[in-house]
């Protein structure tokens, strides 16, 4: 009976490890880590997406498609503070990137979007 309980606990832990979108080693970020958002492009503001899939779609889209997608994003000024809540490694691909970039789930903790959650591109997150 006791061994069955330990088995169930182990299985639950394994399920947690595999399903949790928490920061992983590839992301170089820890959950609850405080970060600053700052874009690596010429415009330092960072797009904060309501879904990591839209984040991915934006970087793979044509310019016309991207203009439609930005309706689903907010623009956080460069320098906005945030806390890392999750990270999906190598999730976003783009002709710009040498290798796929991470999608980072953050909680904004400064500025007018403070308290809001969203997804940002890994290179735009500065520890």
């Amino acid at each position, binding site marked *: 009976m006791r061994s069955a309980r330990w088995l169930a606990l182990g299985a639950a832990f394994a399920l947690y490890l595999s399903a949790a979108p928490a920061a992983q080693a590839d992301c170089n970020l820890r959950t609850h880590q405080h970060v600053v958002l700052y874009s690596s492009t010429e415009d330092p503001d960072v797009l904060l997406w309501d879904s990591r899939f839209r984040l991915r779609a934006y970087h793979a889209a044509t*310019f016309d498609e991207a203009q439609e997608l930005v309706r689903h994003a907010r623009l956080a000024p460069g320098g906005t503070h945030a806390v890392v809540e999750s990270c999906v490694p190598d999730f976003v691909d783009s002709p710009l990137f040498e290798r796929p970039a991470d999608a980072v789930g953050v909680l904004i903790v400064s500025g007018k979007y403070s308290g809001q959650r969203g997804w940002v591109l890994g290179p735009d997150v500065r520890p």
Partner: protein
Amino acid sequence: MLALVFAVQGAFQTRARIADTFDRQSQIQAAQLELEELLRLQIDEENSLRGYALTHDPFYVGRYRASTQDFDTKESAIRTMLVSQSPPHGLALLALLDEYDRIQVEWRRDIAVPVLAHPNQPLSEFERRTDKAFSDYETRTVAQLRDQLAGVNADLARSTQTQLDRTSYVRAFWLLVFGLLAIIFNAYSSRLGRELEQERTTTEVLQRAFLSEAMPLPNAEIGAAYQSGSELAVGGDVFDVYRLSDDLALLLIADVSGKGVDAAVLTAFIKFTIRGIALRRRDPGAILAEFNTAFAQTVENPYLFVSMFVAIVNTRNFHVRYASAGHDSAFVRRSHEVQQLAVTGPVLGVMEEPFETKQINLNAGDVLVLATDGLTEARDRSGKMVGEEGAIALIAQADPAPQRLVDELVAKVKAIGGNRLRDDLALLALRPTSVGIGFDDA
């Protein structure tokens, strides 16, 4: 020759291809530099607009407009460079440049124009997001253009290297071909030269063996000379001085039509056959007639014929009985007067005809000069022939000593022909030193 034409044509084609590739590569490299400048102008545009939105200073409007104008000019210049690139590179690059230009035009329409029109009205949240998208996609398009230009540049560099490599291989191939051809030609030429030299040597050996030695005769001085008209072939001239007995000698000079080994062999046939006949017959006309019969029976070549002068000389009284088969280059010089001896029958090998025998008597100091047609038919550079009269004049002016006389004649004939002989030349001269009494039938 064909290989040489191919090699030269190939070299020119390769040069044109490499020049074209270099030209395209230099266009791409120029486009790379211009693209960076274009990006700087785009950022200038955006910064000028931001400056105006923040300060409302008209200076930024002027800077914005200047940047806009420069951007369009630069974009047009890059387009011209890319148009010269062949597809598919050129088309892909132009498509990206079109996309870049479209995004910039739309940015001006959707973002810049409203800001310039209402500088006091800040951009809406959506306009700012759109502005960000413009910025992201311009960055992306420029990055793609940059990558593609670098790729094309690398391709062209590789292509140039490949063409240079190919040129080296082709050059090595043609060098090998020409080298082999030269070796083959040289080997063939050497072989041909060896064969010709061998034939010449053989012929000369034969002629040396058969050619008349000037056998000394009593009471007379003999002069003789033989010069071949060609270095590669020897002729068919022959002379002979042969003692038939104590008081009689055979003098022979003949000219065989043709050159080479055949003619040389025939001269041997002439020399020994005439000697053999002369040992039995003492009448020059009969000697020629018998030889003519033997010649017709022995020599099958219908194109060969012989002109010949035969004389039987009594070396005591120097009565000379002679017959001439079409051989008109026989002269007697008495003091400075020269008389030509007439022919007494047709050339040998043509028809069966009797040959008349004639006689002349030589006195001490007279010179009998026998020559082949190399003397009378010698020509100067303008083509004028010495002729019989010219030959008579040359003999008349020459030194009376037989050997010096013939040497002088050879030198003069050479001088007339520009230091070379066009035909073989054989000369024989006989001068009695003392004339006594003797019997003609000795």
